[in-house]
């Protein structure tokens, strides 16, 4: 009884101690790793290609998916470091469109790919998007450690999504994944158009 009262008092004290709300990440002090994680989940430019890669890896079976799961975050980190130390973020116009178009089309087509092709695509995507992210981090004057957060977020999304697709047994569920792939490819094609027209 006495312990319960003490706990309630401690809780009430903490309630009185609450800080004011802060709207901007810079003032929350979460640090560069969390900045990297939140940047990834809030940037569809990065999130959507990884989602497409995870769908493709899942459709192509566990062997390719396992390779892609580890290759993609590693390549993202390596590409990010290369971009951080030698990249130029100004070249980024339209770069998100190509992975969306290629990966989305492959998902929509649902052709069986060899495991090394899946791993190679994951590597190319990781180097490609990682490089531009690293370059952007350098231009913004932030710390490269944000790439660790990004790599972790990529790993989590890749693991959960590809595992979900791998577990699908119903033909209709597989068709739904293909429809999602066609939507992603269509978005990529429109994005390519926006980029070429200079209106993105």
């Amino acid at each position, binding site marked *: *009884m006495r*312990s*319960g009262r003490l*706990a*309630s008092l*401690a*809780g*009430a004290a*903490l*309630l009185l*101690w*609450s*800080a004011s*709300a*802060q*709207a*901007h*990440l810079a*003032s*929350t002090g979460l640090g560069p790793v969390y900045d990297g994680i*939140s*940047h990834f989940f*809030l*940037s*569809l*430019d990065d999130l*959507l290609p990884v989602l497409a890669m995870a769908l493709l890896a899942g459709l192509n079976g566990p062997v390719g998916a396992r390779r892609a799961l580890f290759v993609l975050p590693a390549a993202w980190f390596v590409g990010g470091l290369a971009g951080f130390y030698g990249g130029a973020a100004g070249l980024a116009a339209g770069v*998100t469109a190509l992975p969306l178009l290629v990966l989305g*089309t492959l998902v*929509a087509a649902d052709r069986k790919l060899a495991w090394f092709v899946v791993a190679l695509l994951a590597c190319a995507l990781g180097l490609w998007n990682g490089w531009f992210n690293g370059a952007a981090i350098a231009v913004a004057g932030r710390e490269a450690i944000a790439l660790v957060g990004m790599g972790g977020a990529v790993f989590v999304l890749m693991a959960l999504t590809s595992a979900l697709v791998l577990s699908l047994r119903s033909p209709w569920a597989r*068709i739904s994944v*293909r*429809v999602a792939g*066609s*939507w992603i*490819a*269509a*978005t990529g*094609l*429109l*994005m*390519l*158009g*926006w*980029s*070429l*027209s200079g*209106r*993105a």
Partner: protein
Amino acid sequence: MSKTRVRRGAGLALLLSFALLAAPALAHEQQGQAAGFVTGLLHPVSGPDHVLAMVAVGMWGAQLGAPAIWLLPVSFPLAMAFGGFLGLVGVPLPGVEIGIAVSAILLGSMVAAQARPPLWAAAVVVGLFAVFHGHAHGTELPAGQSGLLYSIGFVVATGCLHATGIAIGLLHRWPWGQATLRLAGATIGVAGLFFLWRVV
């Protein structure tokens, strides 16, 4: 009071305190994101010509059965995005509005007649009209909004219209449903004639 209940009470108080201490997520990383998505999502449903044609595609796919029921919704977004791409890079497409009106007439007629052409012919008809719809509607991004989010919203809304058409088309398994579908197809065809009359 048992120890478990004391611990539970203390845990709840702590959880509540932490919830009140938590800072909100970063709200404004990029500008125009939400507006771009909503504009893209609402754009296809704002024009009755687009809505009727998309629903007719789904209904026709359901009438034709597998594999058309899933092949048409997979291929249509890609063909539509190709039309949008042509519009964005400045390739002119003469008679776009007439093409859209004719699409409602033809697709409605196919549903009304329960037409069963070869799969490739159905795909060509649907793909051709998708290019017109994409060219007319895929390029209308308001200034200051995100091209990526607009594209996603546009593609998702079109896919949802297809899904609506497929859901309606599932009535085809009952005799009374077949008659209802044919009537709905005829109505779409007549609406297409009205759109054509308005354009010409």
